[in-house]
């Protein structure tokens, strides 16, 4: 009685493994296989989340780090993209019900959606830090100090509130004397790091749940490009 459990488990595992050595892991709904075969385009959901996903050129397609990554990946495997815009909650629901395949919305691996949706490995570990313009001396305590942030990034303003600083919305041109940005962006903005990281977020791309082959293929594309993505983010800040 104490032995049947492990035998059954090992037997089942071996049987399953033997059954499908060829294409393993698989998608629950064969998404990767179908888009590769050209049966349908890859449906990619997006929502505005600076600097990861930006508004596009007016034709309804998004711009920015994440849309570009997905575009490059789709091109590399010869797949057409159909862009679908919606709020983050709408995208998550759509992923859950497989009405879209991939979503870009500046998702972090610590997001509230848990295992309801799939996600890639973090493609970038981005620390939000306060930078100081040349000649500006960083205070020991940030309480009550005015710190600028890109007005399109309300999440960074929230991080400033967390340390008691006063967030001041600004445009990319007017970031002196103090401003918060992601570490790879600082140099491009003419700032030097001043103080510790406010928050470190691990960025991921969301996938439809149980689509393992799709997620793995995306990971195989993203992981070797992590350094490149950091540089791409720095270029993004000059927009």
């Amino acid at each position, binding site marked *: 009685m104490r032995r049947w459990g492990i035998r059954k488990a090992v037997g089942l595992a071996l049987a399953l493994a033997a059954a499908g050595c060829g294409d393993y*892991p698989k998608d629950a709904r064969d998404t990767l296989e179908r888009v590769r075969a050209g049966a349908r385009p890859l449906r990619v959901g997006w929502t505005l989340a600076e600097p990861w996903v930006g508004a596009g050129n007016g034709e309804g397609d998004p711009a920015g780090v994440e849309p570009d990554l997905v575009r490059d990946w789709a091109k590399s495997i010869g797949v057409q993209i159909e862009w679908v815009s919606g709020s983050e909650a709408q995208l998550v629901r759509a992923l859950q019900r497989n009405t879209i395949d991939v979503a870009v919305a500046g998702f972090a691996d610590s997001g509230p959606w848990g295992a309801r949706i799939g996600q890639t490995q973090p493609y970038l570990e981005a620390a939000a830090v306060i930078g100081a313009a040349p000649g500006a001396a960083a205070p020991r305590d940030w309480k009550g100090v005015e710190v600028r942030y890109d007005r399109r990034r309300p999440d960074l303003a929230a991080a400033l509130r967390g340390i008691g600083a006063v967030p001041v919305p600004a445009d990319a041109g007017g970031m002196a004397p103090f401003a918060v940005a992601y570490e790879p962006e600082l140099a491009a903005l003419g700032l030097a790091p001043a103080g510790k990281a406010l928050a470190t977020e691990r960025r991921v791309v969301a996938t439809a749940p149980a689509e393992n082959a799709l997620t793995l293929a995306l990971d195989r594309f993203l992981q070797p490009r992590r350094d490149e993505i950091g540089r791409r983010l720095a270029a993004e800040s000059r927009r």
Partner: protein
Amino acid sequence: MRPIAAVEFPPEVEATYRKARRLAWVTVAYVASAAAFLYATMGTSQAMRTSFFEDVVSVVPSVAFLVGTAVARRAPKPDYPYGTHRATSIAYLTASLALCAMGVFLLAEAAVKVLSDEKTTIGGFSLFGHVVWGGWPMLAAIAYSAVPSVLLGRAKLRLAPKIHDKVLLADADMMRADWMAEAATAVGVVGAGFGLWWLDPLAAALVSADILKDGVFNLKTAVLDLADRRPKNTDGSDWERLPEQVRDMLRGLDWVADAEVRMREEGHIFMGEAFVVPRPGADDLVRKIGQAAEAAKALDWRMHELTVMPVERLPDLAPR
């Protein structure tokens, strides 16, 4: 108050007991290292927090065994005239509760997974610059975590009846719960790779039901032992024969017309009373009673204290 004699295990029991303590220490060390390994492979996810909680719960019976046996073997003192053997029963209760908690926890986890529409998705994992399928390192972590549980569980299962230690038995059950849960996770991971996301909660639910059944059985035994139920053998499969052996031994004495015993379990040992009806004309009763008590103790190392009481007739409703 004048305490009972200190318990000394016979040499072979003492050796087994030391071995069991070593196993418990090994368990604590290995669970700690497995937790560290899981932390390294799974990152800061919800799954990681869950497995950390599981590890904490799974180490409880081993810790209960280490603490319980150490306290139980303290010499009786005037303030603790019966010694501190009940510490073993309390440790057993603690270990049983941990086992129940594990079962309930795993069952609830599987239920929540299904109800909140969570599905296992396993993508890539960066390993020395290569991206491999994340399921492989997970299976390696699971194997590392499960294999020692199988070995430790079997060793504990073998030792427990020899030292009549139910805490160790509950600990063996926990080891079994541990590797069965790991096996269920492995089935879930392999299944996820085939896109069969429902295999994970299903396997977990089946295993947790089995663990919960074990936990409830142990909990029931622990509570009934504390309520001084008639003693059962270590794994609870049958009534303990020792009370009958003592009774039959007493009935066999030439000066005894009839005898009955009452016995309770205090951790590793038994204590109780014997009522003997002397034959008419039996003389030198004080010496004979003393000898009878010693003879009872000689039957088994666990028979620690027997009060022999001469009576005119046996108590009305004798224990069956």
